[in-house]
């Protein structure tokens, strides 16, 4: 099953490679990994999307907790949470595609953030599956370039990951 794991770790050089090294050394899946400093500059927050059986996910959480730089780990799937990913897509917007691309962008609540004679650059946010759905919905031949951030996640309501 797909799990989204959030963690807070000391914002030190090499911290990221400790986490990515752990996943490769122990053969765990890693779908995406995002990291950036938090409002407290000494801490980084990382979101890892992984998959595995309950036993593997339990081991992943334990192994992450074992890293000396890791302050807190939370499996978002243990409760209710919100997931968002940002994707920027450059699509063909010539006469053949222009209307279609504008319409699909609106349907997926995207925003056109750059326009040229023959292309639109569209920003879309949502769960990873929504972004997948957008890609599925448009003509593959129209896609010029895509870039995705990987998922970020946060617990709903009172569920807070903080030191």
């Amino acid at each position: 099953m797909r799990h989204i794991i959030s963690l807070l770790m000391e914002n030190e050089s090499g911290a990221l490679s400790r986490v990515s090294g752990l996943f490769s050394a122990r053969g765990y899946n890693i779908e995406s990994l995002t990291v950036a400093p938090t409002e407290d500059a000494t801490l980084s927050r990382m979101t890892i999307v992984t998959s595995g059986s309950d036993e593997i996910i339990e081991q992943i959480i334990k192994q992450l907790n074992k890293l000396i730089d890791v302050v807190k780990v939370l499996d978002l799937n243990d409760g209710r949470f919100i997931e968002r990913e940002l994707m920027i897509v450059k699509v063909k917007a010539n006469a053949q595609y222009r209307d279609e691309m504008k319409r699909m962008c609106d349907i997926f609540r995207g925003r056109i953030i750059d326009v040229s004679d023959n292309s639109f650059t569209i920003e879309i946010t949502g769960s990873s599956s929504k972004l997948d759905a957008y890609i599925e919905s448009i003509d593959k031949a129209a896609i010029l370039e895509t870039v995705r951030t990987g998922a970020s996640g946060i617990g709903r309501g009172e569920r807070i990951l903080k030191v």
Partner: protein
Amino acid sequence: MSSNYISGAEIVIRCLHEEKVKFVFGYPGGAVLNIYDAVFQQNKFKHILVRHEQAAVHAADGYSRSTGKVGVALVTSGPGATNAVTGIATAYMDSIPLVIISGQVPTFAIGQDAFQECDTVGITRPCVKHNFLVKDIKDIASTMKKAFYVASSGRPGPVLVDIPKDITAEKCDFSYPKSIHLRSYNPIIKGHSGQIKKALSLLLNAKRPMVYSGGGVVLGNASAQLTKFVRAIGYPVTSTLMGLGGFPASDKQFLGMLGMHGTYEANMAMQECDVLLAVGARFDDRVIGNPEHFLSKPKTIIHIDIDPSSISKRVKIDIPIVGDVISVLIELNDLLSKEKTKQNASRKDWFKDINQWRSMNCLNFKNDKKLIKPQFVIQSLYKVTKGDAFITSDVGQHQMWAAQYYPFNKPRRWINSGGLGTMGVGLPYAMGAQLAFPDEKIACVTGEASIQMCIQELSTCKQFHLPIKIINLNNRYMGMVRQWQEFFYENRYAESYMDALPDFVKLAESYGHIGMKIEKPSDVEPALKEAFSQKLKERLVFMDFITDQKENVFPMIPNGKGLSEMITAEEL
């Protein structure tokens, strides 16, 4: 060095003084010259100059295993650090607390492919508990404090501190932090009381109870508490290779070592029990074999371990207790003493089964009049040393025979590489132990293949007058490789014959030691007596025992098989 405005190199030394380090094992080189200059100008610890950095780490490791203290190694950048990696990985797999200080090229040269530069922190990351690259002289003291704290607390392990050369030349005010707090690192010490109560009640109601003790009992200094508990509750107990000595081997309740080369009774009892108490052990492949086969006989498993990630890693645990084994065992002992233990009548059948398995006498071997049997050498070693020596070993058949035929009654007397299985550790381990215990008998049980992996340390032994007794079980084969080739590769002995062996007697003599070659069974005991005699008390003796080439280690569980699927000597 009384002033506090001192160089980075002096700071490193002062930190080691603050940590009351007695020995530093190391090898100098360009990037650590400043540190070595400061080593030269102090006398609070002794520097042991090894002949290869791998041995520096192994010796520090052997020192730590025999004493329980943090071992310290000092190596230079580049090849110094990469040579140390095998030692670090060995310590990591067996959770041994070490602090390794490595020199690094100057900060301004990092990333420039400088002479003797390598990414030491990157290379060692997967085999250390933690590591640091110090980029500012002001951070040296606090980093050293953290290194010692992290290495020795929780589940112990090696910690590496990489220090660029320019930092060691700069100066700043030194003050050593009294204590350190890491918000990201808080090992759990005390076990959950509810779980402990539940565990005891399960144990007391068990029909076929079993205790399985591991290296955590030795590392956690919990032998006395374990022994007290096991004796009070009266259950059978087995131990892993790493846990030997954690419970007295000569005690009736001890079933011997379990695992791939464990005793028949230990493996059968482990398989057939209904409630299992695992203490500081990790259910690894060499111990329980195939986990599905292990669980095919239903059992309730209680697991005490300081490392949560060790619990339910290979085998699902019913009652996990995360905590320091000693504190959990103290609590268990308290609870047990309040219990009016009623002997469960049905347990008699269990002991009957165990005694029947025991009566197989699985470690029995046929002695020979002409050929020296390796098992006989170990038995004689036990006899001559009255079972009270520190035994280090290398890796292979000789290691298993030492574990099987030298019963350890005290912890920290059995020193070997269990997890990584590193050939070549035996001699440097013996160096570390002998330095820690200059008046004790230290024997290194090895083979002609393993000993050659760190043979250069005979020179270190000469320099520091280490009277180690080397028991070389020389069967002219990499014995364990040969054994597997015999069993599983139809006797195709691919590259397992040790051709062109040196004359070990002359080799030992050329290093300034005493060499002995023993070729007849009747000479084994007299030779050992001589080696351990008062006359040779101050000398290293290299004893080259020419043993039976075809002897195998039994019982054996073939790779991937279950605990009850042993091959015994009689079956072949």
